[in-house]
């Protein structure tokens, strides 16, 4: 299939992404060109140094953006790797007479290594711990430098050598230009990472950590890789800093430098492409030019600190978002739409109406919202359903080739205890390829726990899980996903700054590139992107939502988000698919659409296991139903069988005597319910 695609047109998503990328690239090149020309235009030495060091700070902040902005891991110590890069490069060239250019390499490598030494243990815990360990590391590095007095000149600092080739010393201006190029390249690398598979997986870390492993990506590994990249950027920046500033001392790399980097990024806008530039420009360059000379000093710093607070409180997504809004508004104004311009300026903060929307449901709300879903007629929907049934099997190769006679997923005698509470007490079930199996039960019956045990998010105290007959009880969740166990979550995972297709591409399993390949857009990464884009478009088309392909995911309704979620899970080519309350929060029309999609998925060969509250929905969609109560299976069978099973009725109704008339006398179950309706 891949071979013939070479001759087909590029996937729509790729065309649009390329266009977006080109726009930013042109902008960046333009900015770089202006800076390049700076020294020739008569810039003073002080200006060159100001802009040059700001550019290097920008490189470090680009690194922080990768780990904090993309992947959501808090680091308060970016100055640590910056310092390591500066000192290693400086010491090697000044003391051991290395060529300053060559010294850059070990500087970056050592910064990377030290970054990993600091980061790897702390990343296991994450959160504030990570923040504080990195902060302490940021303090420890200058101290260590000061301690290694003989090599580094101690607290008094040392002089670094200028860049040179042989005996020819490279001028200040040229070094500046080299720095500009390095900054441009760093920005390009970060942009490459952002739009690659790794960028998508980092976003998943931020949005739903567990969800990342359901994409077959090890959470810890992804965190470490994001951290490693930030260390590498910091090291590079530091390595160029020493030969540029020419004298370095531990005091320059203190905690305040780290906090400056951190704040610059947050103010610029976490995760946004231009955030490092905007943040650094505001933090370092603006004060020099915007504030009258008499204010430089404490008052300026005070205003700054207040500005930081104001920006975070008032503009939560940072300056980048403001710039985006302003430019959109201006653009719309030019195109003659003042109304559109006004709309663009409105902050996306919760409107009054939204503030009375509660943040988290205590239970999944299954009642229809008032808005209709896709406005399709029943005929239209039938056509889409037919198309789905036709097109889906080709896209789910692994699922189709499964043995339908043996369970694709089996849970045996699973016991889970939380402290004194037994959540699962010998629960067992089997899910077969080509069928939809539903797991029902009252609150606290253990449905989600069982699902989590199957996925690998919860280790059972006893019992086993088998995937196609292979025991996976000890296998980590990301490996289960890679082996074909897909999953969706109650809250759909949405990458709001990406298009629908890009959201789906995160699931692509084939030929995944390394982060280095992604960073430099090596052929392996480009191949993966192309294949992923084609598959994503094909999947979205098969699911009847082609219009979502290039639409920003932030605009999706709840129903669309759920379909994107499903598509992403299908992109992993799963053999088994676990769906956690897929119908929650959907209107009647939307539920019907979802039903058709889930049935088509099963028909294509996937073994579907879904957890649901809505017994009617289950009745329409499931081939088999398993009822849980207090962690044990109390009934299994067809929907009709389970629905009229006395134990199931008791678990829902609680022993109520609903008997009327002759049914009871004849020994039939007290409540008989029709399975089909509508």
């Amino acid at each position, binding site marked *: 299939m891949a071979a013939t695609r070479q001759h087909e047109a590029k996937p729509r998503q790729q065309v649009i992404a390329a266009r977006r990328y080109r726009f930013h690239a042109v902008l960046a090149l333009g900015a770089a060109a202006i800076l390049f020309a700076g020294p020739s235009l008569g810039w003073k030495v002080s200006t060159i140094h100001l802009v040059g060091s700001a550019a290097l700070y920008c490189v470090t902040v680009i690194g922080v953006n990768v780990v904090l902005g993309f992947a959501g891991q808090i680091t308060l110590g970016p100055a640590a790797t910056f310092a390591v890069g500066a000192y290693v490069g400086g010491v090697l060239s000044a003391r051991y007479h290395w060529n300053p250019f060559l010294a850059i390499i070990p500087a970056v490598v050592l910064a990377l290594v030290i970054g990993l030494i600091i980061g790897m243990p702390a990343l296991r*815990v994450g959160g504030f711990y990570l923040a504080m360990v990195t902060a302490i590391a940021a303090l420890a590095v200058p101290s260590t430098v000061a301690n290694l007095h003989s090599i580094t000149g101690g607290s008094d600092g040392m002089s670094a050598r200028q860049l040179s080739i042989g005996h020819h010393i490279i001028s200040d201006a040229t070094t500046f230009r080299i720095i500009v190029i390095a900054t441009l390249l760093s920005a390009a690398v970060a942009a490459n990472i952002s739009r690659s598979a790794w960028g998508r997986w980092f976003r998943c870390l931020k949005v739903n950590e567990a969800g990342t492993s359901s994409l077959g990506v090890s959470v810890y590994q992804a965190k470490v890789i994001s951290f490693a990249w930030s260390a590498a950027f910091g090291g590079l920046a530091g390595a160029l800093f020493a030969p540029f500033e020419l004298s370095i001392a531990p005091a320059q790399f203190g905690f305040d430098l780290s906090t400056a980097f951190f704040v610059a990024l947050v103010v610029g806008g976490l995760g946004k492409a231009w955030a490092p530039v905007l943040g650094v420009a505001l933090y370092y360059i603006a004060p020099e030019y915007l504030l009258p000379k008499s204010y430089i000093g404490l008052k300026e710093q005070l205003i700054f600190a207040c500005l*930081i607070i104001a920006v975070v409180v008032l503009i939560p997504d940072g300056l980048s978002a403001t710039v985006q809004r302003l430019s959109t508004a201006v653009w719309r104004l030019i195109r003659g739409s003042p109304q559109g311009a006004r709309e663009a300026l409105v902050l996306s903060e*919760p409107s009054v109406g939204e503030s009375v929307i509660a943040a988290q449901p205590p239970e999944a709300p299954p009642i229809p919202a008032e808005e209709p879903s896709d406005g399709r007629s029943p005929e239209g929907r039938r056509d889409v359903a037919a198309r789905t049934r036709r097109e889906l099997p080709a896209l789910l190769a692994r699922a189709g080739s499964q043995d339908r006679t043996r369970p694709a997923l089996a849970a045996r005698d699973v016991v889970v205890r939380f402290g004194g509470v037994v959540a699962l007490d010998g629960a067992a079930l089997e899910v077969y390829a080509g069928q939809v199996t539903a797991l029902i039960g009252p609150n606290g019956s253990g449905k989600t726990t069982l699902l989590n045990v199957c996925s690998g998010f919860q280790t059972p105290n006893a019992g086993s899980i088998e995937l196609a007959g292979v025991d996976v009880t000890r296998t980590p969740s990301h490996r289960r996903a890679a082996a074909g166990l897909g999953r969706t979550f109650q809250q759909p995972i949405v990458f709001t700054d990406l298009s629908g297709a890009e959201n789906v591409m995160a699931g692509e399993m084939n030929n995944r590139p390394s982060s280095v390949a992604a960073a430099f857009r090596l052929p392996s990464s480009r191949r993966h992107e192309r294949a992923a884009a084609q598959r994503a478009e094909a999947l979205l088309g098969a699911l009847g939502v082609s219009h979502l392909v290039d639409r920003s995911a932030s605009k999706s309704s709840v129903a669309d988000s759920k379909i994107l979620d499903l598509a992403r899970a299908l992109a992993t080519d799963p053999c088994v698919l676990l769906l956690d309350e897929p119908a929650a929060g959907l209107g009647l029309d939307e539920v019907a659409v979802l039903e058709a999609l889930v049935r088509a998925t099963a028909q294509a060969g996937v073994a579907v296991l879904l957890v649901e509250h809505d017994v009617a929905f289950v009745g329409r969609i499931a081939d088999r139903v398993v009822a849980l109560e207090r962690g044990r299976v109390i009934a299994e069978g067809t929907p009709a069988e389970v629905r009229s099973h006395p134990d199931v009725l008791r678990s829902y109704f609680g022993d109520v005597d609903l008997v009327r008339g002759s049914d009871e006398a004849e020994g039939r179950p007290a409540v008989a319910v029709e399975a089909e309706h509508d």
Partner: protein
Amino acid sequence: MVLFFQAVVSGLTIGAIYALVAVGYNVVYASTQVFNLAQGMLVMVGVMMTYEFREVMGWPTVGAIAGAVVVAGLINVAIERVCVAPLERTHGGVTTHLALPAFVTTLGASLVIVDAYEIIFGSQILPFHQYFNAVAFNIGGHKGVHVGRQQLFMVVAALVIAGAYHAFAKYTRWGLGLSAMAQNREGAALRGVPVAGARIVAFLLAGVISGLAGIAIAPVTFGDTTLGFNYALKGFVAMAIGGFGSTTGALVGGAVLGLSEAMLTTYGNDQYRIYASLMLLIVVFTLRPRGILGRQTIRTV
């Protein structure tokens, strides 16, 4: 041997301050899920205000202390009003979403305090009259271990303040209300604890505690506001070692950190101080992430 015990004395003394910063963090974090980075800076506010009131303005010691406490408490309340409460509107109501932005805004608040102080009060340095005369206790004879009254005062002050907070938390309705909020925010609201107002109370208390720490340390510290960041970090380490959510843990953590630092600086040099924090943190994360006496696990951001 004498050197060792001298190190113990200075370790406990500085550990007392770290412990109080940790208690301040606990008061706020436990009940509101917000980590107030300005907590360390409030110690410096205590130092500065005591200095201002007592030396510059000539107030009597008791008045200066009272004034410093009030100022520190009010500044922390201001931080809550300006840097934390408004975040709920723009970042959504779910409290866990406040954590990162609050981190940044309270960091900004620390910077504001540093700069504002220097602008308002300039940098005149007058001699600070010690609280106690310089006679020190000597344990083990004249060549034995010197324990200054000031040092003893600091350790005692830490124990008293921590004890007072503990009593507050256990016997008053607001104290219990804050503890309840820490364990179950919704449950507390359902029982009539006004969670929004309670956050202000938590910040006020934390400000007072840190302010008192500053008052205790005022005679022996330079008026270097950047020390505030140092206390902020060390207080966190103390809390991590001793365990989040535990006042006793804060005391233990502060003691452990202070002692480790003292050992490293006495037997090594001053630049080794930071390694104490680094090593202790790594040990704690690896062996017992909850902390020595920790009861709640800190929620990851």
